[in-house]
């Protein structure tokens, strides 16, 4: 094994391509969408037009055929400009597309992936319930087999992308029986919007990611056919764990992107803002903050890219994924916080992007595994 810190030029081109799009199309409208708490179908479809969905899906399934690190770089670049669009993208890819590509039958792949990979449709991933957050074992949504179909009852909450005008449906985890050891058996179902017994409610008044869609899912004797089962009955728990490991890398990328965007804004501002007769970046109190921000981002990116490399090379990466998500999201908070501090009073107004970065980072320590749960994952991996 050789140590090499030089990335292929292809990755730089991926970064440039995503950055040009983010700065050209997302940046001008991000603040307004955030303020109006509005999901943009048009931006989502434009992201699809340039191949940001299905990035790691093989070309024969309608995807872009790229590797995981390319996808992570793209998420990072979108998050550098706007957390909301990055959320739509990361959830769309890691939670909506990835499970179908990995576990779906050939006919499910053919049915859903081409449109999902073009950004024409979106798919949610319903896991969290009102009483089952970190404690996924407390899931109470059930599916009971009746002949050739399943009847789902229960409720999911805080599901990204589940109720947009272009959402096709959601992947929903439900208890479908008990194992010999008494633990519940889980199965994932692809439930299309519009299925009788399946209703949705968009959750409003969010404090972050306000340009992304978050919904509650209600199942009341919702009947789906056997074809809706993702993979095999009973595989739901395994599928969920694998999906979350991958999802954690993309949340890590959102953390780095958010930190990078906030840091760049602070650095730029610190060069323009004159106090005590010189730019504030020339004053040690501010210069040291900026040095620490650069340091933290560099460390976080190295950790995340290593985790991606492990994933790409089919090595165990659960611990590194947890570490990446934990560290990247925590430095996003620290960097966004200092970015506001460097902006002083102006950083408290919506006219400056750091105000939005400061709010958007807060989800990252909660969604897809809280920082506390991630510490459990890491401590178990080291034998505690």
């Amino acid at each position, binding site marked *: 094994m050789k140590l090499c810190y030089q990335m*292929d*030029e*292809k990755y730089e*081109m*991926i970064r*440039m*391509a*995503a950055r*040009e*799009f983010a700065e*050209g*199309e997302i940046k001008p409208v991000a603040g307004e969408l955030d303020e109006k708490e509005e999901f943009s179908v048009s931006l989502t479809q434009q992201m699809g*037009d*340039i*191949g*940001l969905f299905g*990035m790691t899906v093989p*070309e024969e399934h309608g995807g*872009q*055929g*790229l590797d995981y690190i*390319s996808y992570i770089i*793209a998420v990072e670049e979108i998050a550098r400009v706007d957390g909301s669009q990055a959320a739509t993208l990361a959830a769309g890819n890691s939670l909506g597309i990835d499970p179908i590509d990995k576990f779906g039958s050939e006919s499910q792949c053919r049915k859903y992936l081409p449109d999902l990979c073009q950004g024409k449709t979106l798919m949610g991933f319903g896991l969290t319930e009102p009483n089952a957050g970190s404690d996924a074992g407390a899931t109470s949504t059930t599916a009971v087999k009746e002949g050739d179909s399943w009847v789902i009852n229960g409720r999911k909450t805080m599901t990204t992308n589940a109720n947009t005008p272009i959402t096709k449906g959601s992947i929903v985890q439900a208890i479908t029986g008990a194992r010999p050891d008494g633990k519940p058996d889980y199965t994932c179902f692809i439930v299309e919007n519009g299925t009788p017994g399946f209703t949705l409610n968009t959750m409003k008044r969010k404090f972050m990611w306000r340009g992304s869609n978050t919904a509650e899912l209600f199942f009341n004797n919702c009947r789906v056919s056997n074809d809706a089962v993702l993979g095999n009955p009973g595989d739901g728990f395994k599928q969920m764990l694998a999906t979350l490991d991958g999802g954690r890398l993309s949340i890590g990328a959102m953390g780095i992107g958010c930190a990078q965007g906030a840091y760049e804004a602070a650095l730029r501002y610190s060069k323009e803002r004159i106090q005590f007769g010189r730019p504030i970046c020339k004053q040690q109190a501010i210069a040291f903050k900026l040095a620490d921000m650069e340091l933290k981002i560099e460390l976080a990116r190295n950790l995340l890219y290593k985790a991606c490399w492990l994933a790409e090379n089919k090595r165990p990466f659960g611990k590194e994924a947890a570490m990446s998500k934990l560290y990247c999201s925590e430095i996003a908070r620290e960097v966004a916080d200092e970015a506001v501090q460097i902006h002083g009073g102006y950083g408290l107004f919506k006219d400056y992007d750091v105000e939005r970065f400061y709010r958007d980072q807060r989800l990252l320590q909660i969604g897809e595994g809280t920082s506390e749960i991630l510490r459990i994952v890491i401590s178990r991996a080291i034998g505690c």
Partner: protein
Amino acid sequence: MNIIVTVKQVPDTHEVKIDPKTGALIREGVPSIINPEDKNAIEEALRLKKSSDDGEVTVLSMGPLQAESTLREALSMGVDRAILVSDRAFAGADTLATSYTLSMAIKKIERYDLILCGSQTIDGETGQVGPQLAEWLDLPQATHAEEINIQGNLVTVKSNFDSVTRVMEMKTPALITVSNRINKPRYKHMNKVLRAYRDKAVVTWSKEDLKLNPIRIGLNGSPTWVRKTFVHSHSRDGIVVEKPAANCAEDILDFILEKALLKL
């Protein structure tokens, strides 16, 4: 329709600083980009290709080997072929030697209906290479195009020069330089980026691959040399008038009339 687009790798002048002592560009750490109007030319070529039945778009550049990344970017936008003309013997070329060398590469490509160039680069800003290229190849040319329409072998080109709009008609093969107002270059598609690196090659031609007259290339073939570059100084000697405001106004008016800056 087969289209050749000439492109140049340039320093991103948004990022460029000039050494105040030597007057030279500080290139260190400055990213290289495709010359912006060359991107408009690529976009227009891809658009024209799509509206015709078949054919391909070839990008052609002369420059050092690191200009390959610029050609990969063009491939990422969706062009079919990329050729880099590169040789130490081409170093020091002015616009004449550059356009000659490019013209010989185009003669080697043979099959083309249209050559598109950016109107000018953001580093040299001469705007000469496109028109010179047309002369070497003995082609009709139109410059600063803001609209191109093709019907059969007839090309209509619209250009705006301040208050004058010029519409020209030419027969293919022809050369057109395009303005940045002609279109908005597309964003690169992720899968096209992959293909640009995985499936496509940048062909490199050296001096041996082209039938060149040695006195026409590089420094030897360049009648112009840059004698000096310097940072233009905007400082002026100010005149301070220390009088009450009303009298000041009179002095200033006298000054303006004396210098004939304004006629009453």
